[in-house]
């Protein structure tokens, strides 16, 4: 089972305040076991807030989900076995008992988690506009993801690199981490 170590919401102008309010010492960051890596999930919610987003992957015994979503930027950092993980479904109405959902499988939002790294496959951008209208897209916001990690858990970055796992390598992320 995945260990959720951290869940942050970043709210526009409150960004710095929120960041500074967190101290890495207060977080219980589990050590990685053999063959494990960290999975950093980034989500940006525009418009209607989904009730939950389901995940699936090689290291999950059952389906995981991101819940209690809010507008704007938010992250989940999970320790998982190396393997492939993906955003699976987006539900937009708990009142309908979550019977209606958008299937993201065809869009292939897959993150390949490697052992001993923090793997990031890009942000899922959610724009649910109506009961049947939604736009989902995957965008590499690596600089934002790194900024988040620097504020929330910089000790993690002393031992592990943040790696963008998309098809094209991101030298900017490498450059940013070399400067540290």
């Amino acid at each position, binding site marked *: 089972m995945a260990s959720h170590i951290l869940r942050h919401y970043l709210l526009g102008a409150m960004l710095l305040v929120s960041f500074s309010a967190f101290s890495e010492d207060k977080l219980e960051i589990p050590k990685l076991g053999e063959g494990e890596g960290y999975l950093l999930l980034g989500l940006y919610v525009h418009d209607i807030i989904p009730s939950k987003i389901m995940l699936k992957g090689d290291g999950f015994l059952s389906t995981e989900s991101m819940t209690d979503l809010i507008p704007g930027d938010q992250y989940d950092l999970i320790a998982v076995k190396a393997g492939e993980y993906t955003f699976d479904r987006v539900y937009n109405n708990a009142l309908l008992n979550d019977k209606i959902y958008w299937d993201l499988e065809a869009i292939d939002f897959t993150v390949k988690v490697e052992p001993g790294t923090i793997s990031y496959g890009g942000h899922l951008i959610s724009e649910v506009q109506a*009961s049947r209208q939604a736009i989902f*897209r995957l965008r590499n*916001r690596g600089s*934002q993801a790194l900024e988040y990690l620097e504020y929330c858990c910089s000790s993690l970055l002393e031992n592990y690199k943040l790696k963008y796992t*998309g098809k*094209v390598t991101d030298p*900017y992320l490498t450059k940013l981490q070399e400067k540290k």
Partner: protein
Amino acid sequence: MNIVLQIFVVTGSLLFSLASFAQAESEDKKTASPEPISAKHAREIFQKSKYSSAKIDPSGQRVSFIEHDKTKDTLMFLDLKSNNMQAVFVDDDNRIKNYVWVDEDTIVASVRYLDFNRSLYKFDFVYENGLLKNIESKLILNNAYLIDALPSLTNKIAVAYYSEDEPDIYTFDLNAKNISSQLGGRHKLNKNAPDGDDWIFDTHGNLKVMSARKDGKITAWYKEPEKGRWIEIWNEKQATTFIPLSFNSDTEELLVLSNHDRNFTEVIRYNVHDKTFGETLFKIDNHDVESVQLNQKRDGILYASYQVNGVEQREYFSDLGSFIKQQLNKSIKASGFWVHDKSLDNSVVLALKRNSQQPGIYYLFETNQTRLSVLTETKPLLSKFRLGKNQTIKSKSSDGLEIESYLTLPADSDTVKPPLIVIPHGGPVNVRASSNYNATVQYLASLGYAVLRPNFRGSLGFGKKFKEAAKQQWGKLIEDDIDSATQAVIDSGLIDKHKICIYGASYGGYSALISGIRRPDMYKCSASLNGVSDINLMLSNHFESDKEDTLSWIKEYYGNPETNQQELLLKSPVYQADKFKTPVFLAHGLKDMVVDIEHFYRMKAELKRNGNPASSLILSNERHGLKYLNTNVELYSALDAFFRKSLDLPEAKVLVK
């Protein structure tokens, strides 16, 4: 009803009417909280047109148009005999997207709601003794929009109807009691057809040709009459233009706009059976034909249009068209008049005049009496400003390629050498600058700036070779083209060569950033709206979502990050930020789906890291284009302040009459 007299006046009394209107707006503003001059001016210039979408009914007795105000759009109806005007449909959410006169008594309108659902409405005009007695409105279909009014058929229209993701195409009788009985598999015209996004009906109202742009390709299909099968007639990379225009079932002839095996786009016959190009119907030396308007019966072309020096030119294909053009120009003694709409018998023409200083004036032209009267200006508020005048600039780029650009000089440029804002367009391919009215250009010109808009390599309208010359020339020859245009303006002595900034959106934003790095001697500041700052990042997002056909086009035009990443980094402002010596302004739509806001964050962070922090603005409700008036006000007043500070200019002053 009072407004009838204000809008529908002949030329002589128009000025009074407009002056009254402008005064009313100005008084209204006095009660609002005070704004900087540049913001107040932006609020006026970027305001939506007051009137748009004017159309004439088939009998030529009535004109309809959409009137916009701050809170609503209203579809209006004007009886030309009685001057009686009436609201047909009041639309609180700016939902009317398109409408047509189906016959002299009926309008069908497509509306789109905020949640993107669409509906079709029908408005029947009931007359008694020639006078309008009543308007009956009816919602006829949800989840549908109008694709063709089928003018050769009585009371029939063609619609795209969404029951699932892809649209079903139907034609149906508007007068039938039960519209839904005309829907369903039996009636579906694109049954067993590939997914298309453009549909061509023949002169009998039969769906004959479909086309689609997908995955970097253009595909077209023809429906064979015997078995009703859809046969692929075209499937090529989108680098070759192929736009089906009309299909004549009697001659089995398809007309297309294409540049297949030639440099410039022409109007050509295409044989759907042996898939070969035939006779060219119309071409113009050294210019692409950019669009074609069919006549009302769809059995011929009304005109083909192209641009010379950024000004639209129309070649009419009928005696009537030529007569109208000749008479309009003779009556007004000026060019830039176009047939906008006309009655079926050609007796009444709705004409539109537009140019670089005028977004549009609607005229009514009665061809039998050769009488012309003004209906209305589309944007009456503009009449109080002294707007800029355009001229064409030709320059030679570093490799000798000729570049055509448009320079707009402010009205006071005869007394003072103005500062210059260079605005490269987006794209960079298949987009162009023109000499038409442009709100951004005239906003800047009326604040005293000169504006230069280069058509660098890749721009639309200059042929296939010119477009292909832009391949992988980001930060290289494209910017050489722009610099050559700027240098030509400097050499002309028309502007202050020490006060030049560069500003653009999307690719234009990239160009502004990389030009600031390349030529700090020429450009004293750079401003980017939704600009690409990291080419590798842009391509990496394409590689996550696009199919191989699209990717091959992207690699060809932008470069391949898998094999040539280093070169992309050398041309990306984010990786060259340490070379920036001049001030930078960054703005980005938070919801931009084309160029993600990560480009903004990276550029902003790198400039700060290198000791040159940018002025910046996040546009929270905007996507890749600007939709909201308040955003335009916020952005352009901030831009004006940035230019003034960077170029050491005096406080903003609006040039008014």
